[in-house]
């Protein structure tokens, strides 16, 4: 076997990081034998071949990593060349717009509901206070404490009340069904959020596979990363906590808060 075919053989074997490891393992014993036999020139040849293989594998892995990076960016339509078109094309930008739409829809629905509730509440309190007054008048009538004039006035008032009641309860009914309809945002925002959740999952999968590829480059170059643990501020506000029933560091409701505070002397 000639020198050049042997190099080719090694190179074709070591097309990726795992292949390079196999070659490294195979050549190590050969290298040791050559050094032990005192054939330094042949040993140096092996070392230089190994170096070449390592370089070549590195190029292949970096090439793969770059290609995946570009593919991921194209998948999410992030155009790295042209910042002008980036805004219009990016999937992430689109997802942000969609979430802004959710905020807008939920806010509109909440305000519409509150408008209707505020409009309806006075009807309820008027009905209550008028009914209460009429009841006490009615009780007087039943106790026969009422003069005929007073009774006539009560009858007129009762007439007016019943008429108003029928009109007002129509209004209350109408407002209640508008409140019901104002909840239709749930369907639309639900669909939007599900889409964005899908996108986030996809981005995560892509990132994980990119990190995996970058790991192969690290393996060949022998780079070891020191990953410092993230210093998390434990009292930083983060919005509503999820899965509270499974977490020990989160209270499960107002009763828990009260217990905690009273244990602190509140």
């Amino acid at each position, binding site marked *: 076997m000639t020198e050049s075919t042997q190099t080719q053989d090694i190179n074709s074997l070591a097309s990726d990081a795992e292949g390079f490891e196999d070659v490294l393992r195979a050549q190590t014993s050969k290298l040791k034998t050559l050094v032990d036999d005192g054939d330094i020139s042949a040993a140096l040849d092996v070392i230089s071949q190994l170096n070449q293989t390592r370089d070549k594998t590195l190029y292949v892995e970096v090439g793969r990593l770059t290609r995946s990076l570009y593919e991921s960016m194209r998948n999410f339509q992030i155009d790295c060349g042209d910042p002008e078109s980036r805004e219009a094309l990016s999937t992430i930008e689109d997802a942000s717009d969609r979430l802004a739409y959710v905020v807008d829809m939920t*806010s509109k629905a909440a*305000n519409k509901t509150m408008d209707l509730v505020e409009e309806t509440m006075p009807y309820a309190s008027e009905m209550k206070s008028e009914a209460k007054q009429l009841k006490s008048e009615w009780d007087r009538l039943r106790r026969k404490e009422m003069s005929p004039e007073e009774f006539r006035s009560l009858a007129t008032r009762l007439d007016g009340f019943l008429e108003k009641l029928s009109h007002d309860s129509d209004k209350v009914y109408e407002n209640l069904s508008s409140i019901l309809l104002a909840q239709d945002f749930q369907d639309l925002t639900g669909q939007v959020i599900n889409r964005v959740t899908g996108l986030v999952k996809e981005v995560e999968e892509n990132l994980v596979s990119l990190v995996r590829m970058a790991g192969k480059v690290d393996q060949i170059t022998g780079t070891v990363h020191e990953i410092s643990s993230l210093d998390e501020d*434990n009292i930083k506000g983060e919005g509503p906590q999820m899965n509270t029933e499974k977490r020990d560091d989160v209270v499960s409701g107002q009763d828990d808060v009260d217990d905690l505070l009273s244990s602190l002397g509140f």
Partner: protein
Amino acid sequence: MNKDMKILVVDDFSTMRRIIKNLLRDLGFTNADEADDGNTALPMLKTGKYDFLVTDWNMPGMTGIDLLKTVRADDDLKTLPVLMVTAEAKRDQIVAAAQAGVNGYVVKPFTAAVLKEKIEKIFERIDA
């Protein structure tokens, strides 16, 4: 408890401010103003002679916990009663708020009854 007392409601979401103001009005408190974060609230508190502060925790700009700390560190404001109404429910956060001198802590989502009870408790203790 003085029903005419001046209240500042601080929350970054206008719907939540509206809900809290509505509940306060149902409880008879009609004199309430709004601010959307600590930075907006602080100058109002300094000039507005408020009697009671209701604040969210998580807000852009100045957060509720920082607002509470700033209030407690200010000679003119340090005795102002503060009720936290927030979605933040970590034990460490509640302890931190207590240490910072909060007068009451309500976790969202909450009911009108809980809000009423906490406000009454705060002023019972102050009036006692």
